[in-house]
């Protein structure tokens, strides 16, 4: 490949990846931007002020709590499943893998619709119901991520710790867990993103009462806010996950310098994806 082609490819790739988000960046700083001006006539923060008065700070806080709660539930459950899968501790790996695929295949809105009817009658609090459902959505990601890590770590590690006198609990918490710590953090990050980003499950099961940042943004974007306010909400919703992922990626890269040049230090797990 010639240099020109490579440069053109790079420019095109970055345009494709960045341009769709550009309007939010520009609009979030616009005070007045009437058609057909190419750039805002006045810059300002009125969109942010209006977003704040519509409850953006509290909504962001709720999203943070939801993300942390989903990570707190889905990470341990996923790591336990991942250990079994990665170390081949089960006689029925096919079944475990198949069940892990279920939340990926079934549309979350369908499961949420059914569960909403049940949970509201059982009388579970909305926040608990939403965390439960989103944790199930996140478990496949946390499980696969940690399964990959366990597969790279020898099961002997746990046996050796036991032989040296550690209790099963100590062996897992003090020896095995630190060995796969990086992947567990990635798993927790993925679970957090599931909780932070979700719109449809929070809206359905939360019954409109759990106003997270995406729920607030959805209401504004579908018609009732002005574009600067919508853009401010969108930017506030998108910045934390993007910063988190970028920082995580840079750190993993930094620690992986010793890996062979053509091998990625941290392979992206097959099912790493966010909604």
């Amino acid at each position: 490949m010639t240099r020109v082609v490579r440069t053109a490819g790079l420019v095109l790739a970055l345009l494709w990846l960045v341009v769709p988000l550009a309007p939010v960046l520009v609009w979030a700083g616009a005070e007045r931007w009437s058609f057909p001006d190419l750039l805002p006539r006045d810059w300002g923060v009125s969109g942010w002020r209006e977003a704040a008065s519509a409850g953006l700070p509290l909504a962001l806080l709720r999203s943070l709590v939801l993300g942390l709660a989903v990570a707190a539930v889905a990470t341990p459950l996923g790591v336990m499943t991942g250990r079994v899968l990665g170390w081949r501790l089960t006689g029925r790996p096919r079944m475990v893998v198949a069940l892990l695929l279920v939340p990926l295949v079934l549309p979350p809105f369908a499961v949420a619709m059914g569960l909403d009817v049940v949970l509201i009658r059982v009388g579970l609090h909305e926040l608990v119901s939403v965390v439960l459902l989103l944790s199930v959505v996140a478990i496949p990601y946390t499980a696969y991520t940690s399964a990959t890590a366990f597969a790279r770590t020898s099961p002997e590690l746990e046996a050796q710790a036991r032989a040296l006198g550690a209790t099963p609990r100590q062996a897992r918490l003090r020896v095995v867990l630190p060995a796969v710590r990086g992947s567990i953090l990635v798993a927790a990050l993925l679970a957090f993103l599931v909780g932070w980003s979700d719109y449809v499950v929070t809206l359905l099961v939360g019954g409109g009462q759990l106003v997270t940042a995406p729920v607030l943004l959805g209401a504004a974007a579908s018609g009732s806010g002005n574009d600067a306010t919508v853009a401010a909400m969108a930017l506030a919703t998108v910045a934390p996950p993007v910063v988190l992922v970028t920082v995580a990626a840079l750190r993993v890269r930094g620690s992986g310098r010793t890996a062979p040049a053509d091998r990625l230090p941290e392979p992206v797990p097959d099912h790493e994806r966010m909604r």
Partner: protein
Amino acid sequence: MSARPVSLAATALASALLVSACAAPAADSPATSADRPWDEVLAEAEGQTVDLWMYGGDERGNAYVDDVLAPAAADLGVTVRRVPVADTKDAMRRLLAERAAGEDEGSVDLVWVNGDNFATGQEAGAWLCGWSDDLPNMRYVSDEDPLVSEDFGVPVEGCESPWHKAQFTFAYDSARVTDPPATVAGLLDWAEANPGRFTYPAPPDFTGSVFVRQALYALSGGAEGVPAAFDEGAYDELTPALWERLRDLAPALWREGRTHPRDQVALDRLFADGQVDFTMTYGPATLTELVEDGTFAPTTRVLSVEDGTIGNASFLAIPASSPDQAGAMAVADLALSPEQQVAKADPDVWGQFTVLDIALLEDDAAHAFDRLPDSPVVPAYDELSRNAQPELSSSWVTPLDEGWRREVLGRP
């Protein structure tokens, strides 16, 4: 543990959840409140917290409840907690589910409703009934007022207390529309003659839905031409002309009628941007503020419609599953008091038209209504509601919305 017991346990747990959800009793007989002295109700209300679920998209409505109604309720010893919902149907789904679960400690104490939401609750037996007639402040409400005794054709029967009246209103920019039409049919003609300058929100949006009913009246020779109660025969007879007219109109609409604004707020935005020349609303009071804060041009005017527009009233209803019924009644009565009604009618507060009959008020209270400032944009209620037409029964609403979706939107 092997896989089989795991799946067995999971299945058992899932079925237990399902059964507990299905087995809930579903009582459909309406609950009736006992007749008792008002003092007793007030005494019981003291210390209760009333969760008032209401549409949260109207900033001034929220401010009125928080800054005017709630402090007055606090003087009665009742705490009002406003629960904003994006759509009243969110509150309905919640209280119907609680009803189906046989819950008597429900989370909804008071709801701002009317129309199909009230009708559905009535059908499900979800409302507390036989209480609103006994509210002390009902003495200022006229017995003869059809807007208050029937809600979209459904008899109120003491199951909700009136809160305010509304009048469907078209507004236009007089700087751009120099020859405003005088009837709804004329408005449709105007739209056809001025391609791209008119549109309406897509039903089942509330405002778009009223517009279609308004057009049905206009094409059927007025409200008298349409039986108030839904009937299949009348639907089949009257709607083909309506759909044909709206289909023919479509190419002359904004964006050739390929898309419609999602709701009234979206239409307002098009109007504010000068993309269309008309907007419409069931809450004309908001026009004053929109002109004042510069969103709408100062040349914005309310269209005077000779054949009249549709009017309705909205209400406060108490779910049978509310644990704070006495408190809810106290708040409903307070909301009906002349002091609260006049404060709420002030265009600077909320600008909602009163449900009280001024002739029944004591002099002081009547004067307070007279002293309300005039809006520079919106005419007074008696002028706005001249020749007002009643709402169709709520059983018309869904067939018309669905018919529009299939016959107009679905067939360009």
